[in-house]
């Protein structure tokens, strides 16, 4: 790290923010997705519309929320609607361009597990469960997923599919008839993975600067496909870094402790 003037988490958040465009309506998960989406809003995409599942539409939080329903989200939103309304009229109604999700575990076809590790009836680890993610993954125009890469998170086989990516690949998702296209980018602390247009298998298409292919392979629980024309991410610009760090500093002050990435 000593040769770089930014952390791998900062690289991940900055690269994730870059995926969002100006007029996108983005349904945002709490934590890493929220950090990236707000960084986008504060840098290149001021017109972006952020929706949180607590019913806040057009939220412009000054500090990142700790929970999905912090008062800061309501105070800065254009409007606050009920939870049945946010899921029925806005998400199921087809008004969301991008769903931005985190995940506990992901497989090679971008399916997500946030339910259990081990047997459902007698789990080794009980995770929080579905929340809004299954319907975001199914119905948003496209889905971005952000998580740190490790063998525990990038697994060969999920014990439980909470939110669907491309199931077992090929046209399996298309056959489900879901309205949304599915995951189009997985942004990690090591690089960016993109589903193959035919097989839908996640392929490493972009490496963050200073990261080696060996590192990425070691942090992936399956034999990772590497794109022939692998690109290298642009390092975080000074304005991106300054804005992200100021956002985290405001968050730290607001919550009385340092925030996440």
């Amino acid at each position: 790290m000593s040769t770089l003037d930014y952390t791998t988490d900062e690289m991940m958040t900055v690269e994730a923010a870059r995926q969002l465009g100006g007029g996108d309506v983005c349904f945002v998960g709490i934590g890493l997705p929220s950090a990236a989406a707000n960084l986008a809003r504060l840098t290149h995409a001021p017109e972006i519309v952020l929706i949180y599942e607590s019913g806040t539409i057009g939220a412009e939080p000054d500090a990142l929320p700790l929970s999905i329903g912090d008062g800061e989200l309501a105070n800065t939103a254009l409007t606050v609607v009920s939870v049945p309304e946010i899921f029925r009229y806005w998400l199921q109604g087809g008004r969301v361009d991008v769903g931005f999700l985190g995940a506990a575990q992901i497989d090679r076809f971008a399916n997500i597990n946030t339910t259990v590790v081990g047997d459902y009836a007698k789990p080794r680890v009980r995770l929080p469960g579905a929340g809004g993610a299954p319907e975001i993954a199914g119905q948003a125009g496209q889905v971005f997923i952000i998580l740190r890469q490790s063998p525990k998170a990038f697994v060969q086989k999920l014990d439980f599919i909470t939110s669907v990516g491309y199931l077992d690949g090929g046209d399996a998702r298309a056959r489900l008839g879901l309205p949304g296209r599915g995951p189009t980018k997985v942004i990690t602390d090591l690089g960016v993975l993109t589903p193959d247009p035919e097989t839908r298998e996640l392929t490493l298409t972009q490496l963050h600067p200073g990261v080696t292919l060996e590192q990425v392979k070691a942090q992936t629980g399956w034999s990772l496909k590497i794109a022939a024309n692998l690109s290298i991410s642009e390092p975080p610009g000074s304005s991106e870094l300054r804005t992200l760090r100021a956002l985290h500093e405001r968050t730290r002050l607001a919550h009385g402790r340092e925030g996440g990435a």
Partner: protein
Amino acid sequence: MAKIMPLSEAVATFVRDGDSLALEGFTHLIPHAAGHEIIRQGRKDLTLIRMTPDLIYDQLIGMGAARKLVFSWGGNPGVGSLHRFRDAVEHSWPRPLEIEERAHADMASSYAAGASGLPFAVLRAYAGTDIPRSNPKIRQIACPFTGEMLAASPSIRPDVAVIHAQKADRKGNVLLWGILGVQKEAVLAAKRAIVTVEEVVDDFRVDAAHNAVILPTWVVSAVACVPGGAAPSYAHGYYARDNAFYKKWDAIARDRETFLDWMRENVLETRDFADFLARQTRGRAHVDA
């Protein structure tokens, strides 16, 4: 018509052992005071329902009050696991906990169906996921017009809904604003409803717009005035979310003995929620000094 009464009387009158109980609140206006009172009165064999079980459900589960949990996301938001919930599911401590799991979109729609007097909710959901495999109550239904396959999920119709709101008037009409979650639907879906409020005023119509969320007194069983009753969650316009406490809860709940000690000292041995809040303030002053 709702009766205005002390919270202890409301719980004693309207919450019975074995009831299905929805203490709703989506991060905002979580009825912590009512949850504490249910624990203090030793209610048991409850079916707890909530989209986002958090600290107060961790407490009810850890104290063995629940037989079953119906939910869609169980965690300490932004912090991590609910350790008492996990201990109950992973190790059946202090007793086995049956779970019925859905997704948010489903629970929100199923409360709305319950409030609408319908037997089930219809929504576009779950295709390709393992959730219906874990919950056989989630079924599929064909649209009679297009043949599209949709998810059907049974309505949520709790015996008792418990919510916290900002204001009531002296007749027991209730006003709430800010992040609303599914509280209106939960009250209208339930057989009985208890509402705790920050304050009781003569008339709130002067400062509420015509389309403000108001629950008329005749859909509420009891109103109890409990200032601060949502803490450590928040009441918009009254006090902020105590994020530091949510972080502190992680250490308290991680260990069974630490948890039980905290519950004894802060819930079982307190008279009411005002006593609990006073203890928290004294504890904090002690730490600050």
